[in-house]
């Protein structure tokens, strides 16, 4: 494009349309600076709104690609981001935990007692691991049998345990029932750990104990495991006795209704629920997740509070970073429209999740979503998984696209 007088004029004409947007006024508070909350803060601020982002951590350590860190293929620093770009943009950052929401007076109380008022609140606290749901598995147990379902120290602990394991050992991963963060995540993890074992500890095995009979991209994963990892990977589903009902962390034992499995390295992915603040503020229902209006993302149990990301009931949308980011933008649009006193149009959303089966081999699942019957529902005829008979070059291309997606999204959210 050449910079001519005409393009310049076109640019100012586009800018002239902007003052209408600049009139959008209101004070928006965002709780949680993950893929959902940090995205929402940026896009709301870009629309001219007064935005405060509440997040206790100075750094964000991202889960996507953390399975590659566990397998020794990547460094944790590649997962680590700061909020410097958001602050440069002019977003007010408050390094605190939000401890209370008083929606009747539209006010958030921070851990240090400071109160912040809002016209609209965006709640994006992600998940809490439910340490009450699986007997024997609490926070202390997670230091012996890591979950690694929040990235950081737990990711490194699982990696170190794998590195310390003798060849010939057994790695066991237990996967929870739906819904949970990142439905294909346990199986991507199994794949990459199998890759590590194949190359470093070839006499070792990996067992997945599952509380479900079906999982995301199942036929693709199963075929790839057989092809690449032979009988090194074994999966036991619910009806085969895979549901873990108790763990004995000291001995690394998984107890099922059918018996006990002893691991050398045990990775427990426990049941989950919306971040604590959503539960204590009464925005989640008895399922532990927050029902929302699919057009505005406004909580069904609390007007003026919009819930996005893993904490919300996403309908057909999986709990993914891609979904959280897409929801944040649709929610920002809806809040801007509502604050102008207008009605937001029905959104359409997209999700795409890539899973690595080995470093140059990825498979994907995609979906398109629109409001239907009070939920974000799959648009029929769209979406689905990678082709079953795709060539090695297509699998390699998808691995490249996975890299591209990660660069793009982390740039959009934190860059």
């Amino acid at each position, binding site marked *: 494009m050449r910079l001519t007088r005409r393009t310049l004029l076109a640019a100012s004409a586009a800018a002239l349309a902007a003052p209408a947007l600049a009139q959008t006024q209101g004070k928006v508070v965002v709780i949680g600076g993950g893929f959902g909350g940090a995205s929402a803060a940026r896009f709301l601020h870009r629309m001219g709104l007064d935005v405060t982002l509440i997040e206790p951590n100075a750094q964000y350590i991202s889960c996507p690609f953390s399975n590659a860190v566990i397998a020794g293929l990547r460094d944790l620093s590649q997962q680590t981001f700061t909020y410097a770009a958001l602050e440069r943009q002019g977003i007010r950052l408050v390094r605190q935990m939000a401890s209370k929401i008083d929606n009747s007076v539209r006010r958030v109380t921070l851990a240090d007692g400071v109160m912040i008022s809002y016209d609209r609140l965006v709640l994006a606290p992600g998940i809490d691991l439910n340490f009450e749901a699986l007997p024997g598995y609490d926070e202390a147990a997670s230091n012996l049998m890591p979950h690694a379902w929040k990235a950081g120290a737990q990711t490194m602990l699982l990696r170190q345990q794998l590195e310390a394991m003798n060849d010939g050992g057994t790695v066991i991963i237990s996967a929870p029932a739906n819904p949970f963060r990142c439905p294909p995540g346990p199986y991507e993890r199994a794949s990459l750990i199998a890759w590590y074992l194949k190359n470093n500890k070839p006499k070792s095995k990996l067992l997945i104990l599952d509380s479900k009979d079906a999982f995301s991209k199942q036929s693709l994963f199963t075929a790839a495991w057989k092809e690449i990892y032979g009988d090194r990977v074994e999966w036991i589903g619910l009806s085969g006795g895979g549901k873990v009902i108790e763990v004995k962390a000291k001995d690394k034992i998984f107890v099922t209704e059918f018996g006990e499995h002893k691991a050398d390295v045990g990775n427990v992915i426990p049941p989950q629920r919306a971040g604590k603040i959503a539960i204590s503020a009464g925005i989640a229902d008895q399922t532990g997740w927050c029902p929302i209006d699919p057009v505005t993302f406004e909580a069904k149990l609390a007007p003026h509070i919009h819930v996005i990301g893993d904490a919300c009931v996403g309908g057909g949308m999986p709990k993914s970073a891609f979904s959280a980011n897409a929801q944040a*933008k649709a929610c920002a649009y809806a809040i801007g429209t509502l604050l102008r006193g207008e009605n937001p149009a029905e959104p359409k959303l997209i999700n795409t999740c890539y899973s690595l089966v080995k470093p140059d081999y990825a498979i994907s699942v995609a979906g398109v979503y629109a409001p239907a019957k009070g939920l974000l529902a799959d648009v029929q005829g769209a*979406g689905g998984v990678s082709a079953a008979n795709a060539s090695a070059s297509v699998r390699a291309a998808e691995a490249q696209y996975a*890299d591209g997606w990660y*660069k793009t999204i982390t*740039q959009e959210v934190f860059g």
Partner: protein
Amino acid sequence: MKERKTFRFATTTGGALTALLFCLCGSSLAAPQDVSQSPPGASACLGCHSAGETELPSLKALSALDIETAMDAFRSGGRDATLMNRIAKGFTPEESRAIAQWLATQGHAK
């Protein structure tokens, strides 16, 4: 009141020009885009297609018409894809056109 409005206008124009110069230099567009007038589905595209260089196809060299034509071909199966065929089927031709036009006015496409 009036003065305040003029001031805002001036900063917005400046912003738009900076964005324009940014793309002329070939660097990535500074995130984020203004989504306040985005048609349904449009903002989700940016989760993969940045204006910068990544392993994923950039839309920067495409016109609104190019994007619309590609979406139609992905939808009908006339063009092969690893993923976009699965996504395009979720959008009508009219929705795809609105998205393509928004991406172009945002400086995300040509």
